[in-house]
Protein backbone atom coordinates (compact mmCIF):
# COMPACT_ATOMS: atom_id res chain seq x y z
CA UNK A 1 0.00 0.00 0.00
CA UNK A 2 2.72 2.46 0.96
CA UNK A 3 5.53 1.75 -1.47
CA UNK A 4 8.36 4.25 -1.15
CA UNK A 5 7.43 7.25 0.96
CA UNK A 6 9.60 10.28 0.35
CA UNK A 7 8.64 13.00 2.77
CA UNK A 8 9.64 16.09 0.80
CA UNK A 9 7.03 18.39 2.35
CA UNK A 10 8.24 20.87 4.93
CA UNK A 11 6.78 20.55 8.41
CA UNK A 12 3.24 21.88 8.45
CA UNK A 13 2.63 25.14 10.22
CA UNK A 14 -0.33 27.46 10.81
CA UNK A 15 -3.38 26.20 8.90
CA UNK A 16 -2.59 22.47 8.83
CA UNK A 17 -1.64 22.57 12.52
CA UNK A 18 -5.28 23.17 13.43
CA UNK A 19 -6.56 20.17 11.51
CA UNK A 20 -5.98 17.54 14.25
CA UNK A 21 -7.96 19.71 16.69
CA UNK A 22 -10.85 20.05 14.26
CA UNK A 23 -10.84 16.30 13.59
CA UNK A 24 -10.73 15.71 17.35
CA UNK A 25 -13.80 17.89 17.98
CA UNK A 26 -15.66 16.18 15.14
CA UNK A 27 -14.80 12.75 16.48
CA UNK A 28 -15.88 13.81 19.98
CA UNK A 29 -19.33 14.85 18.65
CA UNK A 30 -19.55 11.72 16.54
CA UNK A 31 -18.65 9.42 19.44
CA UNK A 32 -21.22 11.03 21.75
CA UNK A 33 -23.94 10.77 19.09
CA UNK A 34 -23.14 7.15 18.31
CA UNK A 35 -22.95 6.23 22.01
CA UNK A 36 -26.29 7.94 22.69
CA UNK A 37 -27.98 6.22 19.75
CA UNK A 38 -26.66 2.83 20.88
CA UNK A 39 -27.68 3.51 24.50
CA UNK A 40 -31.21 4.45 23.45
CA UNK A 41 -31.45 1.32 21.32
CA UNK A 42 -30.24 -0.84 24.21
CA UNK A 43 -32.58 0.90 26.68
CA UNK A 44 -35.60 0.40 24.42
CA UNK A 45 -34.75 -3.26 23.99
CA UNK A 46 -34.51 -3.67 27.76
CA UNK A 47 -37.84 -1.89 28.36
CA UNK A 48 -39.57 -3.94 25.68
CA UNK A 49 -38.20 -7.15 27.16
CA UNK A 50 -39.20 -6.21 30.72
CA UNK A 51 -42.63 -5.00 29.75
CA UNK A 52 -43.34 -7.92 27.44
CA UNK A 53 -42.75 -10.31 30.33
CA UNK A 54 -45.26 -8.55 32.54
CA UNK A 55 -48.91 -7.45 32.34
CA UNK A 56 -51.18 -5.77 34.87
CA UNK A 57 -54.83 -6.46 35.58
CA UNK A 58 -56.93 -3.83 37.36
CA UNK A 59 -60.20 -4.69 39.05
CA UNK A 60 -62.17 -1.45 39.01
CA UNK A 61 -65.20 -2.04 41.16
CA UNK A 62 -66.39 0.42 43.81
CA UNK A 63 -67.96 -2.17 46.14
CA UNK A 64 -65.17 -3.71 48.27
CA UNK A 65 -66.78 -7.16 48.67
CA UNK A 66 -67.57 -7.40 44.97
CA UNK A 67 -64.01 -6.23 44.14
CA UNK A 68 -62.49 -8.95 46.34
CA UNK A 69 -64.73 -11.63 44.81
CA UNK A 70 -63.80 -10.59 41.24
CA UNK A 71 -60.11 -10.37 42.19
CA UNK A 72 -60.10 -13.95 43.48
CA UNK A 73 -61.90 -15.20 40.36
CA UNK A 74 -59.39 -13.48 38.12
CA UNK A 75 -56.48 -14.89 40.12
CA UNK A 76 -57.84 -18.41 39.72
CA UNK A 77 -58.37 -17.92 36.01
CA UNK A 78 -54.89 -16.43 35.49
CA UNK A 79 -53.08 -19.12 37.45
CA UNK A 80 -54.79 -21.73 35.27
CA UNK A 81 -53.79 -19.94 32.03
CA UNK A 82 -50.85 -21.48 30.09
CA UNK A 83 -47.97 -18.99 29.75
CA UNK A 84 -48.68 -17.30 33.08
CA UNK A 85 -45.84 -17.91 35.51
CA UNK A 86 -47.46 -16.23 38.47
CA UNK A 87 -50.21 -13.79 39.35
CA UNK A 88 -50.30 -11.92 42.64
CA UNK A 89 -52.35 -9.13 44.08
CA UNK A 90 -50.47 -6.03 45.13
CA UNK A 91 -50.86 -5.27 48.81
CA UNK A 92 -52.93 -2.23 49.67
CA UNK A 93 -49.85 -0.39 50.92
CA UNK A 94 -48.07 -0.96 47.57
CA UNK A 95 -51.10 0.35 45.66
CA UNK A 96 -51.22 3.40 47.95
CA UNK A 97 -47.52 3.99 47.30
CA UNK A 98 -48.21 3.96 43.54
CA UNK A 99 -51.00 6.53 43.76
CA UNK A 100 -49.34 8.72 46.37
CA UNK A 101 -47.57 10.91 43.72
CA UNK A 102 -51.06 11.97 42.55
CA UNK A 103 -52.84 12.07 45.88
CA UNK A 104 -50.04 13.33 48.13
CA UNK A 105 -49.21 12.22 51.65
CA UNK A 106 -52.52 13.35 53.10
CA UNK A 107 -54.51 10.66 54.97
CA UNK A 108 -56.79 8.91 52.48
CA UNK A 109 -60.41 8.28 53.26
CA UNK A 110 -60.78 4.55 54.03
CA UNK A 111 -63.97 4.54 51.96
CA UNK A 112 -62.21 5.79 48.84
CA UNK A 113 -62.46 2.94 46.30
CA UNK A 114 -58.97 1.94 45.19
CA UNK A 115 -58.79 -0.63 42.37
CA UNK A 116 -57.12 -3.98 42.97
CA UNK A 117 -53.95 -4.46 40.99
CA UNK A 118 -52.78 -7.93 39.92
CA UNK A 119 -49.21 -8.23 38.76
CA UNK A 120 -48.99 -11.03 36.18
CA UNK A 121 -45.57 -12.49 35.33
CA UNK A 122 -45.41 -14.32 32.02
CA UNK A 123 -43.06 -17.27 31.51
CA UNK A 124 -41.90 -15.82 28.17
CA UNK A 125 -41.97 -19.17 26.39
CA UNK A 126 -45.69 -19.78 25.78
CA UNK A 127 -47.22 -17.11 23.53
CA UNK A 128 -50.36 -15.50 24.91
CA UNK A 129 -53.10 -13.93 22.79
CA UNK A 130 -53.71 -10.72 24.73
CA UNK A 131 -57.04 -9.94 22.98
CA UNK A 132 -58.40 -13.39 23.90
CA UNK A 133 -57.12 -13.03 27.47
CA UNK A 134 -58.86 -9.64 27.77
CA UNK A 135 -62.14 -11.19 26.61
CA UNK A 136 -61.84 -14.07 29.11
CA UNK A 137 -61.02 -11.61 31.90
CA UNK A 138 -64.11 -9.56 31.09
CA UNK A 139 -66.20 -12.73 31.08
CA UNK A 140 -64.75 -13.77 34.46
CA UNK A 141 -64.88 -10.33 36.06
CA UNK A 142 -66.79 -7.44 34.41
CA UNK A 143 -64.63 -4.93 36.31
CA UNK A 144 -61.30 -6.32 35.07
CA UNK A 145 -59.07 -4.27 32.72
CA UNK A 146 -55.97 -5.75 31.11
CA UNK A 147 -52.96 -3.44 30.58
CA UNK A 148 -50.19 -4.96 28.49
CA UNK A 149 -48.32 -1.56 28.32
CA UNK A 150 -48.41 -1.61 24.50
CA UNK A 151 -49.90 1.87 24.11
CA UNK A 152 -47.28 3.48 26.33
CA UNK A 153 -44.49 1.38 24.88
CA UNK A 154 -45.34 2.23 21.26
CA UNK A 155 -45.22 5.96 22.05
CA UNK A 156 -41.83 5.55 23.71
CA UNK A 157 -40.59 3.45 20.78
CA UNK A 158 -41.73 6.12 18.31
CA UNK A 159 -39.93 8.81 20.30
CA UNK A 160 -36.79 6.69 20.57
CA UNK A 161 -36.83 6.00 16.81
CA UNK A 162 -37.04 9.73 16.06
CA UNK A 163 -34.15 10.45 18.44
CA UNK A 164 -32.08 7.69 16.84
CA UNK A 165 -32.77 9.08 13.34
CA UNK A 166 -31.75 12.56 14.51
CA UNK A 167 -28.54 11.19 16.06
CA UNK A 168 -27.74 9.24 12.89
CA UNK A 169 -28.24 12.44 10.89
CA UNK A 170 -25.90 14.25 13.29
CA UNK A 171 -23.25 11.53 12.77
CA UNK A 172 -23.68 11.78 8.97
CA UNK A 173 -23.36 15.57 9.08
CA UNK A 174 -20.29 15.39 11.30
CA UNK A 175 -18.65 12.86 8.94
CA UNK A 176 -19.48 14.96 5.86
CA UNK A 177 -18.25 18.13 7.57
CA UNK A 178 -15.00 16.37 8.49
CA UNK A 179 -14.53 15.27 4.87
CA UNK A 180 -15.19 18.85 3.68
CA UNK A 181 -12.72 20.28 6.21
CA UNK A 182 -10.03 17.77 5.18
CA UNK A 183 -10.64 18.63 1.50
CA UNK A 184 -10.27 22.36 2.23
CA UNK A 185 -7.18 21.70 4.36
CA UNK A 186 -5.71 19.56 1.65
CA UNK A 187 -6.32 22.14 -1.06
CA UNK A 188 -4.72 24.78 1.15
CA UNK A 189 -1.79 22.40 1.65
CA UNK A 190 -1.46 21.87 -2.09
CA UNK A 191 -1.45 25.63 -2.67
CA UNK A 192 1.12 26.15 0.09
CA UNK A 193 3.37 23.39 -1.23
CA UNK A 194 2.83 24.07 -4.95
CA UNK A 195 6.53 24.88 -5.46
CA UNK A 196 7.99 21.68 -3.90
CA UNK A 197 5.37 19.62 -5.75
CA UNK A 198 6.31 21.23 -9.07
CA UNK A 199 10.02 20.60 -8.44
CA UNK A 200 9.32 16.98 -7.49
CA UNK A 201 7.36 16.53 -10.72
CA UNK A 202 10.20 18.05 -12.74
CA UNK A 203 12.67 15.68 -11.08
CA UNK A 204 10.53 12.78 -12.26
CA UNK A 205 8.38 12.02 -9.21
CA UNK A 206 5.16 10.19 -10.00
CA UNK A 207 1.81 11.35 -8.65
CA UNK A 208 1.63 8.30 -6.38
CA UNK A 209 4.87 9.36 -4.68
CA UNK A 210 3.54 12.88 -4.04
CA UNK A 211 0.21 11.44 -2.86
CA UNK A 212 2.00 9.22 -0.34
CA UNK A 213 3.71 12.21 1.24
CA UNK A 214 0.26 13.74 1.82
CA UNK A 215 -1.17 10.35 2.89
CA UNK A 216 1.35 10.01 5.69
CA UNK A 217 0.86 13.59 6.81
CA UNK A 218 -2.94 13.37 6.91
CA UNK A 219 -2.89 9.92 8.49
CA UNK A 220 -0.88 11.43 11.35
CA UNK A 221 -3.32 14.38 11.55
CA UNK A 222 -6.20 11.88 11.70
CA UNK A 223 -4.61 9.73 14.40
CA UNK A 224 -3.73 12.78 16.52
CA UNK A 225 -7.25 14.22 16.19
CA UNK A 226 -8.86 10.82 16.70
CA UNK A 227 -6.97 10.08 19.90
CA UNK A 228 -7.67 13.55 21.27
CA UNK A 229 -11.38 13.27 20.43
CA UNK A 230 -11.86 9.78 21.82
CA UNK A 231 -10.13 10.60 25.11
CA UNK A 232 -12.55 13.48 25.71
CA UNK A 233 -15.52 11.41 24.53
CA UNK A 234 -14.71 8.50 26.87
CA UNK A 235 -14.17 10.90 29.78
CA UNK A 236 -17.53 12.55 29.07
CA UNK A 237 -19.35 9.21 28.80
CA UNK A 238 -17.72 8.01 32.02
CA UNK A 239 -18.84 11.19 33.82
CA UNK A 240 -22.41 10.93 32.49
CA UNK A 241 -22.77 7.22 33.31
CA UNK A 242 -21.45 7.82 36.83
CA UNK A 243 -23.97 10.63 37.37
CA UNK A 244 -26.76 8.41 35.97
CA UNK A 245 -25.74 5.59 38.30
CA UNK A 246 -26.23 8.00 41.23
CA UNK A 247 -29.79 8.66 40.03
CA UNK A 248 -30.52 4.95 40.40
CA UNK A 249 -32.41 2.40 38.35
CA UNK A 250 -35.06 3.84 36.09
CA UNK A 251 -35.71 5.66 32.89
CA UNK A 252 -32.57 7.82 32.97
CA UNK A 253 -30.08 5.08 33.79
CA UNK A 254 -31.54 2.68 31.25
CA UNK A 255 -30.83 5.05 28.31
CA UNK A 256 -27.53 6.48 29.61
CA UNK A 257 -24.44 5.69 27.52
CA UNK A 258 -22.44 3.07 29.36
CA UNK A 259 -18.71 3.51 28.89
CA UNK A 260 -18.12 -0.22 29.42
CA UNK A 261 -20.28 -1.11 26.41
CA UNK A 262 -18.31 1.22 24.19
CA UNK A 263 -14.93 -0.46 23.75
CA UNK A 264 -15.77 -0.39 20.06
CA UNK A 265 -15.58 3.42 20.39
CA UNK A 266 -11.83 2.92 20.51
CA UNK A 267 -12.02 1.97 16.83
CA UNK A 268 -13.24 5.46 15.98
CA UNK A 269 -9.75 7.09 15.92
CA UNK A 270 -8.68 4.46 13.42
CA UNK A 271 -11.77 5.14 11.31
CA UNK A 272 -11.12 8.90 11.56
CA UNK A 273 -7.49 8.45 10.53
CA UNK A 274 -8.39 6.27 7.54
CA UNK A 275 -11.18 8.63 6.50
CA UNK A 276 -8.81 11.61 6.70
CA UNK A 277 -6.09 9.83 4.77
CA UNK A 278 -8.42 8.55 2.05
CA UNK A 279 -10.04 11.97 1.60
CA UNK A 280 -6.58 13.59 1.36
CA UNK A 281 -5.41 10.97 -1.14
CA UNK A 282 -8.40 11.47 -3.45
CA UNK A 283 -8.16 15.27 -3.19
CA UNK A 284 -4.43 15.35 -3.94
CA UNK A 285 -4.71 12.80 -6.75
CA UNK A 286 -7.46 14.81 -8.46
CA UNK A 287 -5.49 18.04 -8.08
CA UNK A 288 -2.28 16.50 -9.45
CA UNK A 289 -4.11 15.23 -12.54
CA UNK A 290 -4.69 18.87 -13.52
CA UNK A 291 -0.95 19.55 -13.45
CA UNK A 292 1.40 18.63 -16.28
Amino acid at each position, binding site marked *: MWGRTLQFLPRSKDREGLLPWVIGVMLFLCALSVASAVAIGTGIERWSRDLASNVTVQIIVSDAAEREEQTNAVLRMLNATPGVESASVLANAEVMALVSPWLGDLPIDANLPIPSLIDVALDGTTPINMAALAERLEATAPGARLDDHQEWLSQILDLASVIQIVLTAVVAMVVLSTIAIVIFGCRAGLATHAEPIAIMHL*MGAEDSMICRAFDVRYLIHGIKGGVFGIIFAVLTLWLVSNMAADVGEGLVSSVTPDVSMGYWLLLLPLVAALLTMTTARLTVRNALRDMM
Partner: protein
Amino acid sequence: MKLGLDYMITFENVGMRYDMGAEILQDVSFALDKGSFHFLVGPSGAGKTTLLKLLYLAHRPSRGLVNFFGKDLASLEREELPRLRRRIGVVFQDFRLFDHLTAFENVALPLRIKGASRNQVADHVEELLSWVGLEDRMHAKPATLSGGEKQRVAIARAVINKPDLLVADEPTGNVDPEMSRRLMHLFVELNKIGTTTVVATHDETLVKAIGAPVLSLNKGKLSHREAGTAFDGEAQ
Protein backbone atom coordinates in the same frame (compact mmCIF):
# COMPACT_ATOMS: atom_id res chain seq x y z
CA MET B 1 13.88 23.74 -41.57
CA LYS B 2 13.16 20.01 -41.75
CA LEU B 3 14.49 17.98 -38.84
CA GLY B 4 15.10 14.27 -38.80
CA LEU B 5 14.38 11.88 -35.94
CA ASP B 6 18.02 10.96 -35.43
CA TYR B 7 18.48 13.93 -33.07
CA MET B 8 17.93 13.52 -29.32
CA ILE B 9 15.53 16.46 -29.14
CA THR B 10 13.82 18.28 -31.97
CA PHE B 11 11.51 21.29 -31.99
CA GLU B 12 9.71 21.96 -35.26
CA ASN B 13 7.61 25.10 -35.83
CA VAL B 14 6.82 25.27 -32.14
CA GLY B 15 4.55 28.04 -30.89
CA MET B 16 3.72 28.74 -27.28
CA ARG B 17 1.16 31.00 -25.67
CA TYR B 18 -0.27 31.06 -22.16
CA ASP B 19 -4.06 30.85 -22.16
CA MET B 20 -5.38 33.36 -24.71
CA GLY B 21 -2.33 35.67 -24.51
CA ALA B 22 0.06 36.60 -27.30
CA GLU B 23 2.46 33.97 -28.61
CA ILE B 24 5.65 33.93 -26.56
CA LEU B 25 7.44 31.60 -28.98
CA GLN B 26 6.79 31.65 -32.72
CA ASP B 27 7.78 28.92 -35.15
CA VAL B 28 10.76 27.81 -33.11
CA SER B 29 12.74 25.03 -34.79
CA PHE B 30 16.01 23.48 -33.66
CA ALA B 31 17.58 20.14 -32.90
CA LEU B 32 19.91 18.99 -30.15
CA ASP B 33 22.27 16.19 -30.95
CA LYS B 34 23.49 13.82 -28.27
CA GLY B 35 26.47 15.28 -26.43
CA SER B 36 26.02 18.77 -27.90
CA PHE B 37 26.51 22.01 -25.97
CA HIS B 38 24.38 25.05 -26.74
CA PHE B 39 24.00 28.46 -25.25
CA LEU B 40 20.57 30.10 -25.27
CA VAL B 41 20.78 33.88 -25.34
CA GLY B 42 18.38 36.73 -25.79
CA PRO B 43 17.14 39.86 -24.05
CA SER B 44 14.74 39.70 -21.12
CA GLY B 45 11.22 38.85 -22.26
CA ALA B 46 12.48 37.16 -25.43
CA GLY B 47 10.99 33.82 -24.35
CA LYS B 48 14.11 32.08 -22.98
CA THR B 49 12.41 30.85 -19.80
CA THR B 50 9.41 29.58 -21.79
CA LEU B 51 11.68 27.69 -24.16
CA LEU B 52 13.57 26.22 -21.20
CA LYS B 53 10.27 25.16 -19.62
CA LEU B 54 9.42 23.30 -22.80
CA LEU B 55 12.88 21.74 -22.71
CA TYR B 56 12.47 20.46 -19.16
CA LEU B 57 8.90 19.32 -19.80
CA ALA B 58 7.18 21.78 -17.50
CA HIS B 59 4.76 22.66 -20.34
CA ARG B 60 3.51 21.27 -23.60
CA PRO B 61 3.69 23.61 -26.63
CA SER B 62 0.55 25.26 -27.99
CA ARG B 63 1.47 24.11 -31.49
CA GLY B 64 4.26 22.47 -33.45
CA LEU B 65 6.13 19.19 -33.08
CA VAL B 66 8.39 18.37 -30.17
CA ASN B 67 10.28 15.12 -30.04
CA PHE B 68 12.11 13.96 -26.91
CA PHE B 69 14.34 10.89 -27.04
CA GLY B 70 12.38 9.56 -30.02
CA LYS B 71 8.95 10.20 -28.50
CA ASP B 72 6.46 12.73 -29.83
CA LEU B 73 5.43 14.95 -26.92
CA ALA B 74 1.92 15.49 -28.31
CA SER B 75 1.11 11.78 -28.16
CA LEU B 76 2.82 11.18 -24.84
CA GLU B 77 0.56 10.16 -21.95
CA ARG B 78 0.90 12.09 -18.70
CA GLU B 79 1.96 8.89 -16.91
CA GLU B 80 4.97 8.60 -19.25
CA LEU B 81 6.36 12.03 -18.36
CA PRO B 82 8.13 11.11 -15.07
CA ARG B 83 10.32 8.58 -16.87
CA LEU B 84 11.37 11.20 -19.42
CA ARG B 85 11.87 13.88 -16.80
CA ARG B 86 14.33 11.63 -14.95
CA ARG B 87 16.55 11.88 -18.02
CA ILE B 88 16.62 15.68 -17.74
CA GLY B 89 18.54 17.67 -15.15
CA VAL B 90 17.48 21.24 -14.45
CA VAL B 91 19.41 24.06 -12.82
CA PHE B 92 17.01 26.85 -11.97
CA GLN B 93 18.08 30.47 -11.90
CA ASP B 94 16.71 30.82 -8.36
CA PHE B 95 18.11 27.39 -7.32
CA ARG B 96 14.73 26.10 -6.03
CA LEU B 97 16.34 24.09 -3.26
CA PHE B 98 14.18 22.66 -0.46
CA ASP B 99 14.94 24.94 2.47
CA HIS B 100 14.07 22.37 5.13
CA LEU B 101 16.49 19.79 3.68
CA THR B 102 20.28 19.75 3.93
CA ALA B 103 22.56 20.04 0.90
CA PHE B 104 22.99 16.25 1.04
CA GLU B 105 19.23 15.61 1.16
CA ASN B 106 18.56 18.07 -1.66
CA VAL B 107 21.08 16.42 -3.94
CA ALA B 108 19.81 12.96 -2.96
CA LEU B 109 16.22 13.67 -4.03
CA PRO B 110 16.47 12.63 -7.71
CA LEU B 111 18.16 9.37 -6.70
CA ARG B 112 15.52 8.66 -4.08
CA ILE B 113 12.77 9.40 -6.59
CA LYS B 114 14.41 6.88 -8.89
CA GLY B 115 14.40 4.34 -6.07
CA ALA B 116 18.14 4.06 -5.41
CA SER B 117 19.22 2.20 -2.28
CA ARG B 118 20.38 4.07 0.80
CA ASN B 119 24.01 3.03 0.19
CA GLN B 120 23.93 4.09 -3.46
CA VAL B 121 22.48 7.45 -2.44
CA ALA B 122 25.13 8.01 0.21
CA ASP B 123 28.04 7.07 -2.07
CA HIS B 124 26.90 9.07 -5.09
CA VAL B 125 25.85 12.18 -3.22
CA GLU B 126 29.03 12.39 -1.15
CA GLU B 127 31.15 11.89 -4.24
CA LEU B 128 29.31 14.53 -6.23
CA LEU B 129 29.28 17.09 -3.41
CA SER B 130 33.04 16.60 -3.09
CA TRP B 131 33.36 17.12 -6.86
CA VAL B 132 31.61 20.49 -6.60
CA GLY B 133 33.73 21.39 -3.57
CA LEU B 134 31.03 21.13 -0.92
CA GLU B 135 32.27 18.13 1.05
CA ASP B 136 32.38 20.28 4.22
CA ARG B 137 28.89 21.72 3.67
CA MET B 138 26.94 18.49 3.15
CA HIS B 139 24.77 18.87 6.22
CA ALA B 140 24.18 22.59 5.91
CA LYS B 141 20.74 23.86 5.02
CA PRO B 142 20.33 26.30 2.09
CA ALA B 143 19.70 29.25 4.42
CA THR B 144 23.29 28.99 5.66
CA LEU B 145 24.86 28.58 2.21
CA SER B 146 26.26 31.39 0.04
CA GLY B 147 24.84 32.06 -3.43
CA GLY B 148 27.69 30.15 -5.09
CA GLU B 149 27.29 27.21 -2.72
CA LYS B 150 23.55 27.06 -3.36
CA GLN B 151 24.20 27.12 -7.09
CA ARG B 152 26.63 24.23 -6.78
CA VAL B 153 24.10 22.24 -4.73
CA ALA B 154 21.51 22.95 -7.44
CA ILE B 155 23.94 21.80 -10.13
CA ALA B 156 24.80 18.66 -8.15
CA ARG B 157 21.09 17.89 -7.80
CA ALA B 158 20.61 18.38 -11.54
CA VAL B 159 23.40 16.02 -12.54
CA ILE B 160 23.24 13.34 -9.81
CA ASN B 161 21.16 11.08 -12.09
CA LYS B 162 23.67 11.46 -14.96
CA PRO B 163 20.97 13.06 -17.13
CA ASP B 164 20.95 12.83 -20.93
CA LEU B 165 19.96 16.48 -21.09
CA LEU B 166 21.05 19.25 -18.73
CA VAL B 167 19.16 22.53 -18.86
CA ALA B 168 20.54 25.48 -16.90
CA ASP B 169 18.82 28.83 -16.57
CA GLU B 170 21.34 31.61 -15.90
CA PRO B 171 23.51 29.34 -13.75
CA THR B 172 26.11 32.04 -13.30
CA GLY B 173 23.70 34.90 -12.71
CA ASN B 174 24.15 34.99 -8.94
CA VAL B 175 27.87 34.32 -8.58
CA ASP B 176 31.11 36.25 -8.93
CA PRO B 177 33.23 35.93 -12.12
CA GLU B 178 35.63 33.42 -10.58
CA MET B 179 32.78 31.15 -9.43
CA SER B 180 31.09 31.71 -12.79
CA ARG B 181 34.19 30.41 -14.58
CA ARG B 182 34.40 27.37 -12.28
CA LEU B 183 30.72 26.52 -12.75
CA MET B 184 31.01 26.74 -16.52
CA HIS B 185 34.06 24.50 -16.35
CA LEU B 186 31.84 22.02 -14.49
CA PHE B 187 29.21 22.14 -17.26
CA VAL B 188 31.86 21.60 -19.90
CA GLU B 189 33.21 18.60 -17.98
CA LEU B 190 29.69 17.12 -17.80
CA ASN B 191 29.22 17.74 -21.49
CA LYS B 192 32.47 15.93 -22.21
CA ILE B 193 31.11 12.79 -20.59
CA GLY B 194 28.12 12.84 -22.94
CA THR B 195 25.48 15.06 -21.32
CA THR B 196 23.68 17.25 -23.84
CA THR B 197 23.76 20.72 -22.33
CA VAL B 198 21.74 23.89 -22.87
CA VAL B 199 22.76 26.92 -20.86
CA ALA B 200 20.69 30.11 -20.90
CA THR B 201 22.79 33.16 -20.20
CA HIS B 202 23.11 36.90 -20.66
CA ASP B 203 26.87 36.71 -20.36
CA GLU B 204 28.35 37.16 -23.85
CA THR B 205 31.90 36.91 -22.42
CA LEU B 206 31.08 33.42 -21.21
CA VAL B 207 29.62 32.48 -24.59
CA LYS B 208 32.76 33.65 -26.35
CA ALA B 209 35.03 31.93 -23.83
CA ILE B 210 33.37 28.54 -24.29
CA GLY B 211 32.84 28.95 -28.02
CA ALA B 212 29.77 26.71 -28.25
CA PRO B 213 26.87 27.08 -30.76
CA VAL B 214 24.28 29.65 -29.78
CA LEU B 215 20.48 29.64 -29.98
CA SER B 216 19.34 33.23 -29.92
CA LEU B 217 15.80 34.26 -29.05
CA ASN B 218 14.39 37.65 -29.87
CA LYS B 219 10.70 38.48 -29.53
CA GLY B 220 9.85 34.80 -29.58
CA LYS B 221 11.77 33.99 -32.74
CA LEU B 222 14.80 31.75 -32.71
CA SER B 223 17.94 32.11 -34.75
CA HIS B 224 21.05 29.91 -34.80
CA ARG B 225 24.72 30.70 -34.74
CA GLU B 226 27.46 28.15 -35.00
CA ALA B 227 30.43 28.52 -32.71
CA GLY B 228 32.48 31.55 -33.65
CA THR B 229 30.07 32.78 -36.37
CA ALA B 230 27.47 35.56 -36.62
CA PHE B 231 23.75 34.93 -35.99
CA ASP B 232 21.96 33.79 -39.15
CA GLY B 233 19.43 36.34 -40.36
CA GLU B 234 20.03 38.75 -37.49
CA ALA B 235 22.20 41.78 -37.06
CA GLN B 236 24.72 41.48 -34.23
